[in-house]
């Protein structure tokens, strides 16, 4: 029995889930309103966008690369899509809206792949360049104005709720339809990363590029697919943010510049680029933990400007925690 517990505890996901539970209990003791269905619905709504963006950066980091531009690409794709549609007075089926955004994002991620995998540039530096370029380009070449009237069916999507719950104070909170998007995308990613040959190859490339190449894996092709998948995810996340937020703007402040929340979630879920262990489940727990803390600090009476500090500390703990139980390199000892 004891052995069994020990084995379960070795899984990072289990540890993370326990930490999450502990924090939920702690917060609930301070303010009982935290532990309510209504608050859970609010959490889903607040974390929807970050949860999906985290998947994009997760798969890129699993393949041993990095992308500093994922949030900008998603916002760019969504805003340009909305701009084109509203300027031409089009109101297509939501699937087509998503498709346009996805295609734009895939094209941009292709550019990132080209720089990272073909030119062998430092992933962080190259994608920082892309991010800065796109952030400026959308304002200079497209538009700076907010788009308040979205295509009607996307607008309707933003107002679709699955359920309603009531806080103790009588205020209503609704379960947004984006929870279905999150569930489906995480399920698909989980299956893709865990049960398919492709998923195994992504982990292999991330663990050791050279070894993967010699084992017969086409590293460039795997990375290309990884970046394109990231593009698809960014495209969906961008449109979904607009739907949830009910308006579209060039560089939404809760996404662009807040990339570290998604990255921290991935790191907490052990999607670390130098170790290449990461999972959809771990990332989901990471996102929930990050969103729960930033969403509920105010409910237990801590001012919201502690969020940045909490993000940093959690990210640091995540980094150090998973690196410290890794076997030390021999060469490091010989150096002393």
């Amino acid at each position, binding site marked *: 029995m004891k052995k069994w517990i020990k084995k379960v505890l070795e899984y990072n996901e289990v540890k993370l889930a326990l930490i999450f539970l502990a924090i939920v209990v702690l917060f609930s003791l301070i303010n009982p309103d935290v532990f309510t269905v209504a608050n859970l619905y609010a959490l889903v709504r607040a974390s929807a966008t970050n949860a999906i963006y985290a998947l994009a950066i997760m798969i890129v980091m699993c393949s041993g690369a*990095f992308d500093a531009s994922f949030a900008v690409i998603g916002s760019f794709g969504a805003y340009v899509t909305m701009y084109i549609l509203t300027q031409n007075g089009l109101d297509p089926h939501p699937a087509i809206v998503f498709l346009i955004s996805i295609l734009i994002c895939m094209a941009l991620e292709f550019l990132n792949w080209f*720089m990272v995998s073909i*030119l*062998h*540039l*430092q992933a*962080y*530096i*190259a994608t*920082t*360049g*892309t*991010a*800065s*370029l*796109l*952030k*400026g*380009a959308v*304002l*200079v070449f497209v538009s*700076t104005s907010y788009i308040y009237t979205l295509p009607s069916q996307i607008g309707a999507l933003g107002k679709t709720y699955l359920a309603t719950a009531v806080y103790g104070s009588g205020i209503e909170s609704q379960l947004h339809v984006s929870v279905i998007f999150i569930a489906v995308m995480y399920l698909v990613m989980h299956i893709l990363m865990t049960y398919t040959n492709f998923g195994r190859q992504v982990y292999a490339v991330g663990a050791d590029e050279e070894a993967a190449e010699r084992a017969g894996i086409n590293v460039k092709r795997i990375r290309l697919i990884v970046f394109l998948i990231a593009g698809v995810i960014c495209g969906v996340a961008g449109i979904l943010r607009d739907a949830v937020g009910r308006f579209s703007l060039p560089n939404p402040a809760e996404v662009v510049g807040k990339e*570290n929340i998604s*990255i*921290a979630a991935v*790191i907490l879920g052990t999607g*670390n*680029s*130098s170790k290449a262990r990461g999972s959809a489940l771990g990332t989901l727990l990471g996102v929930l933990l990050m969103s729960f803390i930033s969403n509920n600090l105010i409910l237990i009476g801590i*001012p919201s*400007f*502690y*969020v*940045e*500090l*909490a*993000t*940093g*500390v959690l*990210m*640091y703990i995540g*980094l*150090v925690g998973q*690196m*410290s139980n*890794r076997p030390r*390199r021999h*060469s*490091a000892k*010989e*150096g*002393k």
Partner: protein
Amino acid sequence: MNKRRLSNSDPDLFRLIVVTILIFVAMTALKPDKFLSKANFSSMCYQIPEIGLYTLAMMLILVTGQTDISSVAIGNLCTITGITIMSQATKNNVTGAAAWLYILGALIVMLLIGVVCGLVNGFTVTYFKVPTMLVTMATSSIFRGIAVVATEGNALTGAPEELTYFGNHGFLGIAYAMWFFLIIFVVVAYLMNRTKFGMELRFIGSNEKASEYAGINVNKTLLKAYVYSGVIAALTGFEIIARTDAAKYDYGGSYVNQALLACVLGATNPDGGYVRMACIALGLASVQFLSSGFNLLRLGGNVKQFAWGALLVFVVCFDVLNRELRRKKAIRDVAKKHNS
């Protein structure tokens, strides 16, 4: 004749001189009366030190093949602490030598914070073997978070006039801030080119494992580099207090990208191991000429943001292709020699 020799013997420097002159000429042609004016040059003298110091802080880590994005966060944490201490002097109406004691005390505390922040970064990178970019992303969130919590998001002011005088006046027609930067630049150049530390840092950047087998204490050298980087960030904070008499947690967020651009434009190899101080100086000048030129042309922050990104992408792509061509040429030359 002279030019041709330079282009062969030192292609990086030659290329940068050409780029800098081109930008200078282009900006002069677009706004001749304003760009060449004395006011423009003196305002550039006040802007270069900040971005220049952050560039030096970034360069020290970039030469090891890693990217440190926490310098600006360290700098802001230092300005906030520094100004909190210095404003005591203003509050108590202390002037003259006594005010300088406050300033000196603030400077020492700021340098200590720089050292501690550098140690945190360096220790995490060397001991836990985590990629620098991720570490500094986390630590800059922490440093910025501390700054936000300490100030509740407000801007602080109240540095003594003794200090702000130096931030806004010049000596021999050049701003004191510029002299400050030049001194630090020369010290860093000496450190990189003439000391064992600088050589070791380059070796580590080009091949960490080989450096270790060559008997270099890699961890110690890296730790030193992070501490120096933190100290430079703290000195930047000091310069910012002197010039602006203000401290805010999110001051100068765009400096990270500009510093990265100046480093890469200045022929620093992002994969590590190669840095030329003269090229860094020219890279900085190019970035500043562009920035000032954009301001004079009344192109706003959005255009600049776009330009920095586009330039960064262009420069790193160009460098890689250039290096590849050079490598192929070298192989061809060797083959030719071998055959003849």
